């Protein structure tokens, strides 16, 4: 199962120039692809296009081909696509349905929309809550949760839909370190279970830990891409508006200070 974007470009309705150009990207089973770039590089737009929301909901024009398992999804309606590709946004408040009076109903909202059998909805909802360690919130009012808790609830809502591909636009933007670790662990576990994930993140330390490859966007184009270690250690990263991971900065500082980098690498691995 591979989500593939081939030569994809996208222009918002009314925009004078495209926001994405010549994007080639493949998300095979079990891969975690990190997406980084400066502000307005096109990260969120790429998430919208990859998930199918653009142009189906957002409008605008897409060029190129988006396929699932080599099948062009151009004619698929959004509700069909949403059963295969899940998307999470950075603002937790807008991801909540606003009609659920409990977290349990909020997480179950997606599977209920899809007409999944009731017992499967219930079991899947508990499992999704459990995977993020938030079963205790099941009976709480989603509107009364903190931003971080709401983000975890929104994530659980995506997991409950059992997507094959997941697009996450800065899922940890409002999370504390513990919440970030939970989301990171959930992403890694999902990937181990075969889900492919495209995740936009400012926290390159997190990407260094969970991503199998990283794509750097600049002005709507792919500026760098490749294995995580190589891309996140690329000296051009800072010029592209991306913060290097702490480990990379540490290595660089150690090298310039004449520290034994072999011993440092061993310590970092430990």
């Amino acid at each position, binding site marked *: 199962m591979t989500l593939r974007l081939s030569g994809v470009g996208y222009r918002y309705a009314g925009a004078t120039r495209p926001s994405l150009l010549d994007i080639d990207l493949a998300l095979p089973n079990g891969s975690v692809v990190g997406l980084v770039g400066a502000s307005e590089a096109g990260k969120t737009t790429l998430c919208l296009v990859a998930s199918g929301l653009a142009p189906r909901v957002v409008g605008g024009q897409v060029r190129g081909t988006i396929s699932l398992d080599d099948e062009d999804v151009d004619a698929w309606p959004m*509700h069909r696509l949403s059963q295969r590709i899940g998307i999470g946004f950075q603002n937790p408040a807008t991801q909540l349905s606003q*009609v659920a009076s*409990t977290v349990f109903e909020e997480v179950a909202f997606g599977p*209920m929309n899809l*007409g999944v059998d009731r017992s499967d909805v*219930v079991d899947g909802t508990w499992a999704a809550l*459990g995977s993020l360690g938030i079963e205790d919130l099941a009976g709480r009012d989603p*509107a009364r949760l903190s931003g971080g808790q709401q983000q975890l609830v929104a994530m659980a809502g995506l*997991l409950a839909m059992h997507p094959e591909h997941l697009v996450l636009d800065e899922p940890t933007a409002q999370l504390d370190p513990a919440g970030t670790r939970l989301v990171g662990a959930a992403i890694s576990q999902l990937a181990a279970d075969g889900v492919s994930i495209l995740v936009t993140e400012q926290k390159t330390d997190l990407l260094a830990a969970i991503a199998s490859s990283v794509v750097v966007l600049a002005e709507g184009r792919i500026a760098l891409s490749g294995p995580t270690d190589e891309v996140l250690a690329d000296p051009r990263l800072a010029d592209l508006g991306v913060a290097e991971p702490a480990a990379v900065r540490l290595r660089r500082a150690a090298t310039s200070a004449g520290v034994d980098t072999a011993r440092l690498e061993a310590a970092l691995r430990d």
Partner: protein
Amino acid sequence: MARSLRLTDPARIPANSPGRGIPDVIGRPGPSPFHRLNPLTKATLATTTAVAAVVLGGLVGPSILVGAAVIVPAAMAGVLRRLLVMAAILALPIALSAFLINLFFFPGGETVLLRIGPVAATAEGLGFAMEILARILAISGAITLFYLTTRPADLVVDLERRGVSPRAAFVINASVQTVPAMVERAGQITAAQRARGLDTEGSIWRRVRGIVPIVGPVILGSIAEVEERTMALEARGFSRPGRRTLLWSPGDSSREAVLRWAMVLALAALIVGRMSGAWQ
């Protein structure tokens, strides 16, 4: 197509999960027999009471309705005090203006009770104003009783169970739920603006001037969120045609169905009797 996803596989439900059912708080029965009536029964009672108060007219009919369909059920449900306060707040602006206008400007009023400058309160105006007041109290009381004893989500789930489209049900529910969300947002924006020096206290003019920087962001912020909220809904299969799965639905009984039909038929008979002139 393999759709298994072990992370969310039911077999991996943590041992400390509350269980495989839905949490107790969902669909928890209300505290009184009136609370536990089916939401549609309570909605029918509220609607027929409000319409009947208008159709009946006069002072006696609406007053009996207020007693029988509002006060007594509210007392049974244990919400009488809250109902009186809320219904009064809800009805006060319109009740006060309607009462004063009819009291002082009732056309054809001859028996003067009180004269204030060029206007006079008349006995005929007072009688008509009391009739209007009785209708307003019946309507506001019926609506308030429904609101105090029914969770919006319960009504929506019940309507969906009866075949109302999920989109219509969502619109009803979201409309009700949006009000507290906007009130909360207004509170946050007020606090933020005050922290930046906005003066929302003092003279009326200062308060009015202070409203603009609060109302603008509340409305614009809500509009700005619509697109992202729409996308989130679409990504969760909201536009899928067909019935949704329901986790639970409020109880109903044949006795309640008979009661609902009886209320509707009684209202229909009242309207027909009134329109045909058979009953004045």
